[in-house]
């Protein structure tokens, strides 16, 4: 196991190195630079001065090496679009909120998705199954910003039940000992609709598959109650596909969505994935892509480890099951 994990960590570093090179090359290949302006071009001499100031006048390979040398010391530079803070400060300050939104979304998406999937699978090919499948597909195909605007219009503007914007700190809205802020409801709901549909579909398919296995049929023939059958035999054996789904959704949800964050005025990290590219904010682009690469690699590593935890039959690194 140790050898396997060490190997995976080394491959993670390799992936990040490749990602850094590809990102660097692509962002410099795109036309337009960080200091090309909206209306008029800076006079050439002035432009050269600015490029010199930010080290952008140097050959690309020198710029890349300088960046990586600093990045290894966790110095990712200063964003062009926010010169009063470092990239690290911006990411840390914004990611806390994004992570809160993401984790709550993961929770509700998986909770709701699994329930939907179980319900649909248990009532396979019934009206209920069709209805759940339809809802799941609806969640997948309707963009989150459309859902968000409708939720705002109905629940915030027309019915005035919840705030239309913001993301309060958990310490500001406690109900008893539990943090629960009313301005969390709409963003999390709008954000989790899509993944919930995906999880619902995954869950239904894997449960249906397990329900058709011989051991399920045997258990039923032996008189095991349906509830016991579902919880002790079917659901547990259907965990692996759900973990796979978790691994694909978590990095997305944990890095935020510009649509959700901008629509609900949540001051998170999501918008930077778009604005930094529009602004050609090179330090920010590099840091964000490295962050994404790290999260994806880490999540896949953890999900592989989780397979062995959940199902002891799974062996890592090519080892055979006993």
């Amino acid at each position, binding site marked *: 196991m140790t050898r396997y994990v060490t190997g995976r960590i080394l491959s993670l570093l390799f992936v990040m190195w490749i990602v850094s090179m590809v990102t660097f090359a692509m962002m410099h290949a795109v036309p337009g630079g960080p200091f090309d302006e909206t209306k008029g*071009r800076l006079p050439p001499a002035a432009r050269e001065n*600015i490029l010199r100031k930010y080290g952008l006048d140097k050959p690309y390979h020198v710029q890349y090496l300088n960046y990586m040398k600093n990045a290894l010391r966790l110095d990712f530079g200063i964003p062009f679009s926010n010169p009063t803070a470092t990239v690290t400060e911006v990411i840390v300050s914004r990611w806390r909120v994004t992570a809160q939104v993401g*984790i709550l979304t993961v929770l509700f998406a998986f909770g709701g998705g699994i329930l939907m999937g179980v319900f649909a699978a248990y009532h396979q090919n019934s009206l209920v199954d069709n209805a759940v499948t339809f809802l799941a597909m609806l969640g997948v195909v309707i963009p989150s910003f459309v859902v968000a605007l409708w939720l705002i219009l109905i629940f915030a503007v027309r019915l005035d039940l919840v705030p239309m914007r913001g993301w309060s*700190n958990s310490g500001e809205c406690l109900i008893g000992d539990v943090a629960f802020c009313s301005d969390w409801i709409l963003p999390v709901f709008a954000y989790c609709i899509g993944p919930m549909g995906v999880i619902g579909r995954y869950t239904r398919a894997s449960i249906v598959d397990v329900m058709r296995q011989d051991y399920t049929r045997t258990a039923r023939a032996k008189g095991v109650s349906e509830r016991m059958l579902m919880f002790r*035999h079917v659901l547990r054996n259907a965990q692996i596909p759900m973990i796979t789904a978790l691994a694909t959704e978590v990095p997305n949800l944990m890095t935020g969505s510009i649509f959700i964050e901008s629509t609900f005025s949540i001051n998170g990290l999501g918008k930077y994935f778009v604005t930094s590219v529009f602004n050609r904010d090179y330090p920010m682009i590099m840091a964000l892509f490295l962050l994404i690469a790290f999260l994806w690699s880490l999540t896949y590593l953890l999900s592989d480890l989780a397979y062995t935890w959940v199902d002891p039959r799974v062996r890592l690194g090519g080892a055979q099951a006993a």
Partner: protein
Amino acid sequence: MNAHWLRTPLAQGRLALLLAVIWGGTAWAACVAAPPAAAPEAMPEEEAAPDNMTVFGETLPDDALPYSQQVYRVACSNTATQVTFDFAVSVYQRICSSDLFGDALVTLDKDFNVRPLAADSWEPTADGLTWHIKIREGQQWSDGVPLTAHDYVATYQLSANPETGWDFSWFYGFLEPGGIKNWNQVIAGELPPEELGVVAVDDYTLAITTEDLFPPLPGVLKFSWPIAAHAVAEHGPYYNSSPETSVSSGPFMLESYDPGNELVLVANPMYKGLRPPRIARIEHVYMAPGTEFLAFQAGEIDNIGYEVLSPADFDLVLNDPVMSQNYLRHFGDFRTDYLLWDTFNPPFDSLDVRKAFAKAINREPIVENVFGSIKAMPARSMLMPGYPSSDTEGLLDQYQAYDCPAAQEHLANAGYPGGEGFPRQEMWLRNEGPAMAAVFQAVAASISECLNVDIEVSNKDGKVYMDALNAKPTELTLGAVSYGMDFLDPANLLGIWVSTGRHTWLNPEFDSLVGEASSLVGDPERRDQMFRDAQEILVDDAGGAFIAHRWQGNLVQSWIQGEAFREPDSQGIAGFHWGDDTAISDLYVSNAKEE
């Protein structure tokens, strides 16, 4: 296969642990208590001051809410990049309400006349190259330091400093030959900022020298919002980003700023200028532009711009008895939408091709049905009616008015009868939103339908578009764009068409007329006629095809009152007029808000 393994305590324990990790993480994220936001400090009580009186001692109108409730709430985009409060540091990445931390030397009134603001008066020297601007004494920064000519000198020097990399530095170069003396050499680092043609003659006299005669200079001083020289020296150019180091000589000062989250300004009790505000507080609500109308309907914000209203929103506004009365339509920055082309290369090097395209645009139905007549009027020239030297009589309409048979004839004369053999064109847009993209799609469709030519509309990233437009030689064959004024003089909106400007079109007679008229003093009638003649050349030679002049506007809550924007100007237009910095002093919240 069987499921017995899950019955073992070990496996069940691991499953429970995995779930516990997920739930625990969630609980941590949800419950980790960030430091609660600092409670806002109590406003200092105005001893014995009645609640209908501002901190400046002005009595509020009878229908106003009490002073403590004079809170103006406006939206601030949470997707825009915002770097600084100061115009001198960045123009295109300013934080909301940035021009409230200082008074420019001049302002415009609602009829677009130049009026003193921080300045008392101005006059040119005998040779007309240097302007002496007297700054009104007694003005001060919120820390008590007097506002002097040295602050304005520091402002211009900071902008011109190559280290600043000012994103508006093209502007004073664009004013050539009448730009500020040594501007181009200073921003290039060839001369130190001290060599700039902006000096303090004494504490309250500023002297600005231009490279050539430039009569519109007083209007250009509208962009002179000052920075505090002493604060820059102590804290650097971003001193205004923190309430601890921020100082203001304007009507408001910074109370709190959490980027992307919260921005609160309060009336600056130390303000001694000409626009003391009636409102006590401005709260900026960060939100996506797409949600501003929803927030307005929910009463969360008091004013939204026309640009965030979709055609469907406009339907709602215009059919609502209250909202329709409170949509204030105005000239804005006299913005014109037009097509531009590379006239140095085929096919647009042919005047007939350009005329064919210009006459193939059926502007009326496009404006009526796609743009919306509340937002635009058809254009056949660059200068919007109401702008100086504009064609209010419609004398230039003949050159570009829709005439499909004539357009087809021009195309045939160019060697493309019936559109045959005309190369397929790609019309670039500059990162337009859906509403404007639809307008330009309709323009392309109108041309295609009339001329039987193939035009593909391609909406480009803003920087990609500008890179291609500004490249010499240009990399943009056909594009659509809009331009609004920077200062109220034809030298501005016609100046962008001279051959050294942004467009790939050359007409020596036009260049000569605009160049001469720009620096002409003492004969306003001749100057006006020269600009009119120049515009006729531009339209006749089809330097561009003009599509629409934009009506801009604001939707304000019924309880937001003030004569400056509720009462019409001399042309019958009520609204927030571009360049009128004094409107903010007139604005107040009426008691209609409580009804």
